[in-house]
């Protein structure tokens, strides 16, 4: 078992940065105080820091340039910044540098981007893109772009009208609109370069995910797992927006792009046209498996990794079979889309366990042997470590309360369902943990190579479920499940857990009253940032979880924090505040808590959220004084 790497001399780094900056003033007292705080660390710095025992592949996580060009920070999806000016010692001094209203009172799930001296943010529907000039005081607006998406799209978005961010590549900003467009903008001027209409709201398709740009292709998937929408991933040419390849996540092999290169590790994923034969006749055409989450990319293996969403409808009795290729993960060739391997987290999913969470790519020693792994805190409650070259499961340990299953059989790879928690038509099954929203939903975790810990924002909820009959009507919900959620064991509805990947156990865990629906970011200053649905933006120690600083923003936080080096050479931290999303729909959608089944049952667990926060959309940016 490896030990966490020694903390690097972050205080020393900070001072170097400070000395290099002529524009900043420090009182002698402040400098002296910092020297005192940093003294022990400076001593430790005289020894060469050992190479981290777990680290992302260099090709997928290049040295930090201080920018933030994609929501996950890098292709390895570490959400780790090497900036260390803000550290455990001084983070308590953070103050607001500037704020900016997005003008939209819906859930703000996006990550801001910073490229050069410009920050880019995408609002929820109507998906306005703003460019802010960071080189000027107060970061004035450089340009804005309004795509004017079809308002009717709001009626087919399952869980608030969110957008999870844009991506930057080659002078262009790429983003998706709720009504199914992918748009490329000139990053300097905000002028549209191309606009590809790839989703059809009349069959319930929307797009909420942040695109990922890989090798000149913009990768996008659709949402609609609650509308009987067949999931797909498309690669659009970054130059002109034409569709290079489309890979469906259900249906015949040739449409799933399964060919001779496809080598799944487990027998359960081997066979011809499983995307058809593991369904009742024709059900795969309306079977979900949408790709609305995160994609990672390993340039060395030339593979992208993406999950697949829940099968539709939720009521499992209406779709006997393993329902390939839903609730699983694909490795694909980014050039052709050809599938290389697949693993199914939740075969014949019983509880809406979408498999679309982030995958963090890491290289580490596993039981004495160097392995290229993929770490995934999955919705079904297990922290999976997969060999990303083959899809073999190396480890699957629950990172919170789980009773819907009894573990993962590492021989067959199969999730061991708990028969007591099996849902079905006309049957109310109580106290199923985790909920349909999972032990963790889309909210992405962060990994620090300095500590070897994965910082996981997540939920702690259980639910009652009853399967009901449901009719498929194109463009309307196709769920077939009554759900009501309740707080999980302990009563805290959320948690923020630091998971020791090598030791397969938590290092520490913080309880939060509401689900932690925000993303996380961790820095070389050993500070982890996340937000709460009350509106607190928190900085905790990456090593111990101790609360170092917190700031109350104007609305609940469900966005993805980022950190960057501003044009003045100093480190900044940014986050969008604005409650909503599935968890916060009670506020952003003004739902009625007297109906336990509102928002697919989530409202029952969030009855008091309206008393804790109100809707709003504001960017907050922080810096040291």
């Amino acid at each position, binding site marked *: 078992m490896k030990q966490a790497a020694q903390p690097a001399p972050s205080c020393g780094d900070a001072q170097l940065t400070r000395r290099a900056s002529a524009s900043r003033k420090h009182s002698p007292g402040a400098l002296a105080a910092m020297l005192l705080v940093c003294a022990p660390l400076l001593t430790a710095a005289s020894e060469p820091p050992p190479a981290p025992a777990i680290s992302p592949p260099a090709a997928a996580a290049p040295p930090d340039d201080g920018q933030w060009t994609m929501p996950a920070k890098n292709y390895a999806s570490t959400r780790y910044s090497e900036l260390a000016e803000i550290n455990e010692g001084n983070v308590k001094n953070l103050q607001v540098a500037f704020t900016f209203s997005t003008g939209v009172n819906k859930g703000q799930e996006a990550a801001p981007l910073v490229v050069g001296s410009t920050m880019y943010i995408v609002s929820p529907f109507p998906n306005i893109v703003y460019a802010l000039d960071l080189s000027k005081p107060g970061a004035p607006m450089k340009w804005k772009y309004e795509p004017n998406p079809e308002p*009717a799209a*709001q*009626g087919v978005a399952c869980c608030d009208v969110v957008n999870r961010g844009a991506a930057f590549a080659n002078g262009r900003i790429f983003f998706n609109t709720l009504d199914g467009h992918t748009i490329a903008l000139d990053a300097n001027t905000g002028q549209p370069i191309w606009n590809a209409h790839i989703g059809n709201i009349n069959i319930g398709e929307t797009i909420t995910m942040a695109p990922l740009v890989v090798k000149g292709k913009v990768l996008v998937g659709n949402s609609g797992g609650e509308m009987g929408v067949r999931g797909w991933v498309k690669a659009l040419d970054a130059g002109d927006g034409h569709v290079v390849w489309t890979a469906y996540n259900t249906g015949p092999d040739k449409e799933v792009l399964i060919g001779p290169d496809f080598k799944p590790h487990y027998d359960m994923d081997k066979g011809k046209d499983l995307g058809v034969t593991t369904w009742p006749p024709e059900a795969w055409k309306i079977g979900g498996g949408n790709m609305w989450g995160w994609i990672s990319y390993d340039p060395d293996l030339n593979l992208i990794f993406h999950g697949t969403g829940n099968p539709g409808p939720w009521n499992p009795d209406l779709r006997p079979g393993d329902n390939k290729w839903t609730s699983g993960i694909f490795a694909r060739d980014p050039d052709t889309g050809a599938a290389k391997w697949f693993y199914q987290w939740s075969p014949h999913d019983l509880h809406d366990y979408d498999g679309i969470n982030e995958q963090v790519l890491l290289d580490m020693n596993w039981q004495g042997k160097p392995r290229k792994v993929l770490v995934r805190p999955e919705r079904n409650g297990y922290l999976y470590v997969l060999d990303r070259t083959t899809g073999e499961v190396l480890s699957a340990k629950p990172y919170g309360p789980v009773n819907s299953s009894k573990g993962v059989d590492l021989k067959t790879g199969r999730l061991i369902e708990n028969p007591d928690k099996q849902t079905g038509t006309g049957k109310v099954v109580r106290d199923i943990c985790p909920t349909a929203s999972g032990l963790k939903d889309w909210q992405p975790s962060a990994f620090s190579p300095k500590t070897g810990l994965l910082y996981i924002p997540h939920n702690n909820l259980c639910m009652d479920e009853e399967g009901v009959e*449901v009719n498929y009507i194109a463009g309307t919900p196709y*769920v077939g499940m009554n759900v*009501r959620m309740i707080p999980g064991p302990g009563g805290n509805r959320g948690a923020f857990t630091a998971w020791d990947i090598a030791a397969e156990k938590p290092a520490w865990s913080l309880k939060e009253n509401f689900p932690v629906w925000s993303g996380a970011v961790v820095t070389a200053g050993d500070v982890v940032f996340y937000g709460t649905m009350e509106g607190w933006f928190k900085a905790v120690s990456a090593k111990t979880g101790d609360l170092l600083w917190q700031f109350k923003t104007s609305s609940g936080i469900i966005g993805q924090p980022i950190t960057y080096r501003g044009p003045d050479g100093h480190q900044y931290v940014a986050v969008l505040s604005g409650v909503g999303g599935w968890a916060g*729909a009670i506020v952003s959608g003004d739902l009625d808590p007297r109906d336990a*089944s*509102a928002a697919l049952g989530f409202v029952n667990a969030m009855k008091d959220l309206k008393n804790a926060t109100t809707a709003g959309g504001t960017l907050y940016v922080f810096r040291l004084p």
Partner: protein
Amino acid sequence: MKPAAATLLLAILALAACQREERDTRPQSALGSGEQPTPVTTLEPGGQRPSPTDNKAASFEANAFHLSEGKRLFGWFNCSGCHANGGGGMGPALMDEKWIYGSSMESIHATIRDGRPNGMPSFRDKIPDDQIWELAAFVRSLSGNAPSSAAPSRNDDMMVHPSENRMPDAATLGKSP
């Protein structure tokens, strides 16, 4: 009283109990959606005009059969997929006192028939007109706007809120104004 007279009286009473409300179990229009226009605002320049009413509205609104049919159809046409059991989700809550496009039977009927621009689909020619009226009547019962003697009195499925005949008027929540 003689036993025979008592029996007769009991029989009359028992038969009287069989008297049910009138119900029209064979709706007239198999399909078709009505064409009645319905304003979505109370602002009427040049003075208020009489608001349109439909005689269907009155005949469906307080009718237990139509309300219970509306409850069934609310699930079958996937209304519940968006509006849950009145608390809302993808679509707005229907059990509160807030009405974006009007609370009258005619307004709700028009909303279901024609859709609304921010996400409500149009079910024109997909749902027979009388069933749209049944749905509209049930929607009103969710906020306590149907007579409790006619509103559905039980849920066949998981308990998510008190049955519709026990829902308080959303505007007052059962309190005196």
